């Protein structure tokens, strides 16, 4: 199975940095599953926030597999994160 994620961040703010670090650590941890991660900074490309209707940042969207899952926050609750994404 293949996983695809999009992480929407807002510049180099604290929560954005932490969220990106947390999600990269998670992908590292589950290296046997193929994962792709796209980081989208809405500060530099605001039109992306319009297209994907991003209200809160950071927002993580699991685009693959379906159904789509949306998570908000700095992804610091890793146990909950894993459970939500279906890694345990």
């Amino acid at each position, binding site marked *: 199975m293949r996983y695809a994620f999009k992480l929407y961040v807002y510049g180099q703010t604290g929560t954005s940095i932490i969220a990106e670090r947390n999600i990269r650590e998670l992908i590292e941890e589950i290296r046997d599953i193929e994962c792709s991660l796209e980081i989208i900074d809405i500060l530099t490309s*605001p039109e992306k926030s319009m297209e994907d209707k991003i209200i809160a*940042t950071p927002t993580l969207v699991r685009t693959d597999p379906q159904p789509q899952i949306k998570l908000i926050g700095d992804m*610091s609750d890793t146990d909950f994160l894993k459970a939500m994404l279906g890694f345990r």
Partner: protein
Amino acid sequence: MVNVDTLTDKIPTGIEGFEHITYGGLTTGKTSLVVGTSGTGKTMFAMEVLSKGVTIFNRPVVFVTLEEPSDDIKNNALKMGWDLDRYVTDKMLKVIDASPDPVPLEKTGDYDLSGLLTQIAHSVKEIKAEVVIMDSIGSLFYQFRDVGLIRREIFRIVATLKDLGVTTILTAERTQEYGPVSKHGVEEFITDNVIILRNVLEEEKCRRTIQILKMRGALHSKGEFPFTMSRTGIHIIPLSAAELKQTSSNIRVSSGNNDLDEMTGGGFFRDAIVLVSGPTGSGKTLMSATFTGAACENKEKVLLLAYEESREQLLRNAMSWGENFQNYENEELMKIICVYPEAMGLEDHLLMIRTEIEKFKPDRLVIDSVSALERIATVKNFREFVIGLTSFVKEENICSLLTSTTPRLSGGDSVTEQHISTITDIIILLRYVEINGVLRRGISVIKMRGSQHDKQIREFSIDTGGLHIAEPFKNIQNIVLGIPSQSAPSESEQLGEMFKK
């Protein structure tokens, strides 16, 4: 009264009456909070500011919908004739859909609303928006459940918009009509302007009002103003519509009755409001019919509103006095509208009358009877109606004849008279007078602004030729009070009688 507020820059909203009560509209570059309980018209208010802003004032708007999905908003707007999709194509509108996501949002750690802020700021820059509307911010508290954070984020959005120089309108819920301003205390930090919409149930009657609670650094009218919502939007009824603008006319028009013209010193003034008060069957409708006939013969247009009779009854009765209303209508000199008072709320009646006047542009207005409308409203509501109506017809220079039915056959005051008498220019009383067991009719002009008039109470009779005014009653007292009593003839009269013989 100050009519022009030159200290503060304001943008007009296009909502009927709103500019009047705020002396020009919303303060430019400031934040306005529109609060109200569920169903008070907050979204309607927001949508109308949006649409009128785009279509009338050519003002680009960003609309953030936080509660209803944008498709629903667009469909509802279309019912009002506002084509949001077209505004979007014309680059006059950006809709940001921040309604609750069907995919549930799960929270894993700290976040903020930079996404929403980015969307708004980006849209403002893209279409050079002058106004941002967010409807309704209460929804954010439900979506994210983090009250402290949401309050902080709303404040951040508002501050950013202020920096961008746009005028912001936020709507928010409240739980009680007379209680805390809003549910989440947002007014504590969005402090420029607060507008309250109400929908109060009073004596089983709904009454919508708007109040400008505050408008920082700018003048505005205080108190609650009634409003109504129609297919074309919100209509606020300013109670003091034309206090200073009213001009007065010296030109007189005929009442249709030579005797009455004589009693009033030559007829009614062309912009006068005439109140005819009397018990049922005393000749009020006849008087309005002759008034109508005289106008139409003079090629003046008359709008007649009947609240007590059907169209057929009205035509038949008028015919029996020799007035052919049907002909006048065919010549488009007259328009008859018969409605049951109960058919709609009082604000809607007023709106209907104003719309008809604007469409038909009559020279004269007849309402038979205005007191019939008393029963569908509270006293406060009725007073507002009467003031709203009279100030409007004054402004339009329409000679108006209103009839009022007294509650008792013998006369007495009706609510109508209490509220209307100071506004009217001419008051004519019709009374039954019992003399020696026979009922006779009396007429008196008790008030006539700016003119001399007959102060006697005269007897009158009604036949197929209409109304005939005769001699004053002699030796009868207290007719107006409804308790006529005979008095001894005065000495000079007795002497006069003696010499006659």
